[in-house]
């Protein structure tokens, strides 16, 4: 319905797209573990209804890593909490969350509970606060097992030891008796991962699992997470605001802004050729190795209030290429010129027209796109990631040792 540069590749299935409606490409339901359809979350507050999540849809396949990126308040954490059933009772949740075909949101609380921890695991950002300070690591792992299975304490303890081994904690047997405060930050996060996967879940929600760690430990933890994922055959929903981390772990990326996905694509496509100005802005504001000596290109302004969203595109006030239609109609998430690459932008063709889409935020010399793409092809954790170099001032000594 829109003219495109390479019209041959355009999917025609989007003609029925209702404005504001998110239509993930139809997929064989037998291969999907988790399917989220038009998930909305609203919180009543004194100031009015906060529309924290305004229609998120995605499908997750076995062993896939889906990265959800967005800045604070974009709804990325809230949407996963809604899937887990962990939101406070005051939250108003809409849409459907299908786990292997069953709608999680319409399950009885005890059915939901039997999914949590057993079929859907969760890794929290700060293991220091997410682990119980007065219980030993072993006791907490045993607790995770025995919440779902009626097995003996000894058997559960043995499983706990296996898991600590699996996540790379040395002397696992002795470490079962340790308390969280006796672990270093990285080891705590390893224990947290062990706890999330001890029941061999099909889906792991990792909510900023490396944000509280320093960069070198971060790399090790991501390594561990991916290895454990393969070991237990789980898919991961990886939530972060760190594009560098996403580049190294994700297969597909979903970019969220103001409670909505604004772009989804494979990790290579989204880093190489974003189709939405916001994504381009995020990429441009990320320090990369080839930008040394150049200014970063920040996105001006702040995200809109989720209480009174203006009509039109929520990104319009900050968008350098906004036009009149952006103020009147919110663009739906539609497939672009590439299959599986969707964007919510009236002007995605124009974004595609840029050689370097990040340059729309500040036209400067230098081409950055090529290098970023090359780097992100290496989904195995690269030895040295460019954003690390940018932060460390160019040293490479900080890599996994």
């Amino acid at each position, binding site marked *: 319905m829109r003219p495109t540069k390479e019209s041959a590749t355009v999917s025609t299935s989007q003609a029925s797209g209702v404005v504001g409606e998110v239509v993930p490409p139809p997929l064989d339901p037998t291969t999907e573990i988790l399917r989220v359809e038009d998930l909305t979350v609203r919180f009543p507050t004194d100031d009015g209804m906060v529309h924290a999540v305004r229609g998120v849809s995605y499908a997750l396949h076995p062993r896939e890593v889906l990265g959800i990126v967005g800045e604070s308040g974009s709804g990325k954490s809230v949407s996963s909490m809604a899937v887990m059933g962990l939101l406070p009772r005051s939250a108003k949740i809409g849409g459907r969350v299908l786990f292997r075909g069953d709608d999680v949101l319409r399950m009885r609380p005890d059915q939901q509970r039997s999914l949590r921890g057993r079929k859907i695991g969760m890794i929290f950002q700060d293991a220091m606060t997410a682990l119980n300070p007065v219980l030993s690591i072993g006791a907490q792992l045993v607790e995770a097992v025995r919440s779902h299975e009626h097995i003996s304490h000894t058997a559960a303890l043995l499983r706990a030891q296996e898991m600590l*081994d699996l996540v790379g904690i040395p002397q696992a047997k002795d470490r079962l008796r*340790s*308390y969280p405060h006796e672990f*270093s930050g990285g080891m705590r996060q390893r224990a947290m991962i062990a706890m999330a996967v001890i029941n061999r879940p099909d889906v792991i929600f990792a909510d900023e699992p490396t944000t509280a760690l320093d960069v070198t430990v971060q790399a090790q933890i991501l390594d561990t997470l991916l290895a454990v994922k393969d070991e237990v055959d789980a898919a991961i929903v990886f939530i972060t605001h760190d594009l560098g981390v996403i580049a190294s772990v994700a297969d597909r990326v979903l970019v969220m802004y103001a409670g909505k996905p604004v772009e989804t694509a494979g990790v290579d496509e989204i880093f190489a050729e974003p189709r939405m100005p916001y994504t381009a802005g995020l990429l441009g504001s990320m320090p990369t190795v080839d930008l040394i000596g150049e200014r970063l290109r920040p996105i001006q302004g702040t995200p809109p209030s989720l209480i009174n969203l203006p009509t039109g595109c929520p990104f319009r006030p900050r968008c350098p290429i906004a036009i009149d239609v952006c103020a009147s109609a919110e663009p739906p998430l539609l497939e672009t010129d590439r299959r599986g690459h969707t964007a919510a932008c009236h002007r995605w063709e124009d974004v595609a027209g840029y050689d370097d889409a990040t340059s729309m935020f500040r036209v400067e010399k230098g081409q950055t796109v090529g290098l970023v793409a090359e780097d992100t092809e290496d989904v195995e954790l690269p030895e040295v990631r460019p954003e690390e170099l940018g932060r460390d001032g160019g040293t490479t000594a900080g890599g*996994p040792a």
Partner: protein
Amino acid sequence: MSVPTNMEPGRPGSGLSSGGLDPSDGRDVDGTAAAGLSIKARTQGELVLRRFVRHRGAMIGLLVFIAIIVLAVSSIGMGPIPGWWDKTFTTTGSVVDGGRPTLDPFPAFVDGDGFAVGESPFGQDSIGRDYFATTMRGAQQSLQIALLVGLVSTIVGTVVGSIAGYFGGLTENVLMRVVDVMITIPLLLLAAVVARSTDGSAPTLGLLLGIVVWTSLARLVRGEVLSIKEREFVEAARAMGANPFRIITRHILPNIISTIIVSATLTIAAAILLETALSFLGFGVQAPDTSLGKLISEYQTAFATRPWLFWFPGLMIIGIALSVNFIGDGLRDAFDPRQNKVRA
């Protein structure tokens, strides 16, 4: 307790495929890590115990309390335990020397007569019963009641408080309004009415007083649960699929056990005094059995002429209440993480 445990295991890129479940890999790291672990890590429990043992008042209190229990139980015996004292609190005899105590606590170099226990060290009452045996029986009954009150009120208070705190909403409202109502009723009056409608035996009395005095602990526990349940590890437990019962018992209560233990101890001290007051008013333990409070009440008129009938049970009450209070203080200090004066 500086423990050099913050060593991130070095794992160059290889990930887990090589390490994984291979025991030889773990053993290799064992050797190097064990060398660095020369200082033993102390658990929270060990730290608490250490601080408690070093609390002088608490240790003295504990010794006194244990001594009183041992004395009260072993002297005249209790249930299957045989006593070493030759008289019982029920057998009467001839009143010797107006029932004056034969106990002479001062050794020879102080008063010349020398230390002596005599036939009836605490004296005799007006019908010639041995007052030492009577006092010991009273102490037994009072202790039994106090410990039972501590136990029952702690259980009820913890259950009510944690349910109210964790579930909130209507459950919390109903439970806490019941607590409010119970608190508005004068405790002594409530206890008197409850105690009056029973047979007046020590176990019944203990149980009944227990289900009257749990209210303050319920409020305390509710407050603690309200704050703990907002912590992230409770959310993590929910994300793990633990049910509310498991979350409360395995994740929340271990975090507030210190509050509960301290409160239980102080409740025991208060229960001793409550029982004393009740028995003094005639609502507590009923004759022919006796308790410390009942003894004081019975012989209040004899205070001017035969003061020992007042003093000995009085001293026992003070001894028990004071020692338990000291233990409670010591526990509170030991559990307080800000108490870092006594360190490893």
